[in-house]
């Protein structure tokens, strides 16, 4: 478990206290390395495979994606590679499309609702698991299962559970006297259904990260609060939560960046339907590029690039927050 406490993001258990001496050592180490530096060429020789890899399999696909979005591709010109350059026409077309507004709105709703519930439930469970009781560690490990399952497995399981006629969820609703809901086939419910499945998948991540954050709060703080007479809810609101804020910020920002790009769950459960009711930017981009008989690569790439911009804005905020906490 050596490396668990030395992991990069988000600062886990006890890091605050362990980091100070570690940094001292780093200074000594740096001085030593400088004296015996085997030379920059060796350093870059080791880095070359990674740099080549990043250029070939990150930069180049991204470049091709931008290029796709700036040309008017048809199936034939896609193969021959002679599509005419059309500038930002694809972007204009996409933004003016009737799907754009709803897709953007669904992305926002899906992301915000997912984050709120994942975080709240994850935090409540993390608080619960800070108490010491038998089987605590085992149960916490079991909570990781939904997060580790292939998304196609969890998505198809939820599809069947939410089936209108034979799903177990409607069977339970019927047993307590409620009307069955057309979870996946009604435009009013489809977005909520995929959001519920996504919340379920995201809880473990929030639980584990917030739990390690809670472990890092020294026990004396709680004892001091107890002596001052702060109990229960007050202690959580005034003491625990403020101390957990850095870890919470990181958890939420990471969750945000990852929820924005969720595609598998929605595509497998509803394909973005019925009639676009659960279409987000990610599924729309996929449908444009791959979902139809006649692929529209140009607009598909344009939607994708808009999504990248949104994700990167929040991604840069994340990196900033993390850096600031690292130096604080």
């Amino acid at each position: 478990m050596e490396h668990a406490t030395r992991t990069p993001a988000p600062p886990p258990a006890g890091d605050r206290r362990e980091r100070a001496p570690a940094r001292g050592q780093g200074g000594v180490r740096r001085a030593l390395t400088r004296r015996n530096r085997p030379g920059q060429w060796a350093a870059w020789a080791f880095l070359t495979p990674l740099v080549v890899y990043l250029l070939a399999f990150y930069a180049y696909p991204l470049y091709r994606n931008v290029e796709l979005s700036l040309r008017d591709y048809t199936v034939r010109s896609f193969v021959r590679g002679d599509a005419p350059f059309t500038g930002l026409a694809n972007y204009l077309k996409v933004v003016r499309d009737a799907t754009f507004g709803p897709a953007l709105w669904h992305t926002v709703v899906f992301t915000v609702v997912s984050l709120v519930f994942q975080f709240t439930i994850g935090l409540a469970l993390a608080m619960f698991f800070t108490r010491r009781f038998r089987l605590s560690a085992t149960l916490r490990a079991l909570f990781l299962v939904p997060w580790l399952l292939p998304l196609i497995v969890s998505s198809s399981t939820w599809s069947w559970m939410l089936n209108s006629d034979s799903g177990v969820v409607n069977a339970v609703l019927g047993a307590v006297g409620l009307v069955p809901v057309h979870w996946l086939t009604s435009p009013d419910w489809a977005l909520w259904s995929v959001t519920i499945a996504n919340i379920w998948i995201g809880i473990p991540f929030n639980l584990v990260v917030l739990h390690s954050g809670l472990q890092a709060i020294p026990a004396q703080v709680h004892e001091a609060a107890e002596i001052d007479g702060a109990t229960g809810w007050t202690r959580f609101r005034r003491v625990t939560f403020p101390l957990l804020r850095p870890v919470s910020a990181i958890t939420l920002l990471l969750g945000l960046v990852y929820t924005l790009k969720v595609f598998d769950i929605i595509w497998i459960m509803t394909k973005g339907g019925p009639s676009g009711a659960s279409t987000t930017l990610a599924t729309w981009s996929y449908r444009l590029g791959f979902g139809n008989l006649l692929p529209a690569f140009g607009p598909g790439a344009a939607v994708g690039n808009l999504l990248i911009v949104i994700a990167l804005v929040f991604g840069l905020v994340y990196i900033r927050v993390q850096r600031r906490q690292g130096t604080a």
Partner: protein
Amino acid sequence: MRAGGRGWWHTGLGVVFTALMLFPVYWMINVSFTRDQDMRRSPPNWFPVNGTLEGYREVLGRQLPYLATSMVVGLGTVALTLVVSAPAAYSLARLRPRGGGVLGFLLLVAQMIPGVIMAMGFYAIYLSTGVLNTVPGLILADSTLAVPFAVLIFTTFMSGIPEELTQAARVDGAGALRTFWSVVLPVSRNAVITVSLFAFLWAWSDFVFASTLDQGGDHQPITLGIYHYIGNNNQQWNAIMATAVIASIPATVLLVLAQRYVAAGVTAGAVKD
């Protein structure tokens, strides 16, 4: 450990929470054993009474090639990820290359690019180079899920290796390559395990790249096997869920055998697409 009744009360509550959380997983297993004629019963069978292995027989008959492909893709992704990321991390952690900070920043950004977008770029490239619908092409694409994470994990781990160890190697006359291979890499065993676990799991679970870059391939991974199943015979949910159960085996095995590595990976800001 608190004494007496109070601890047990918490354990009981914890078991209830866990059971609620894992209900979908239980349901998947339950449905995988349910007979076709019981599938649309109302209320459903809560336990696999009159269970059948029909679904599993179906899987063994039809899905084995898919499972084999997933295994190859998973192992290939692990190998490629380790080869690219371990030496680079060694350099970033110990050799202090100029421009290393920028590279670290780019890796963080790389993790945030949505898979759908990478898939479209890969599709355009693969189509013109003829790599579309091949296993190596899928391995290459899947490795992009793991490489940035792997470099970050290795770099943090290798920065923590005591200076004396590498110094001693250097005093004995070992060059950078020798130090990396005979000292740093063996000591980094835990990081190698964590990285391999996640690289395998992500490649095994990948659906985005499989469905775009291997749609028409002769060798398709298990995620596509399940996906075709859902599309083709909507009625046979026991077979679909049996496939899902079998596709979950690697995740379960990893959790049981390597729990501490998994937890380490999650808190490292693990990415899941």
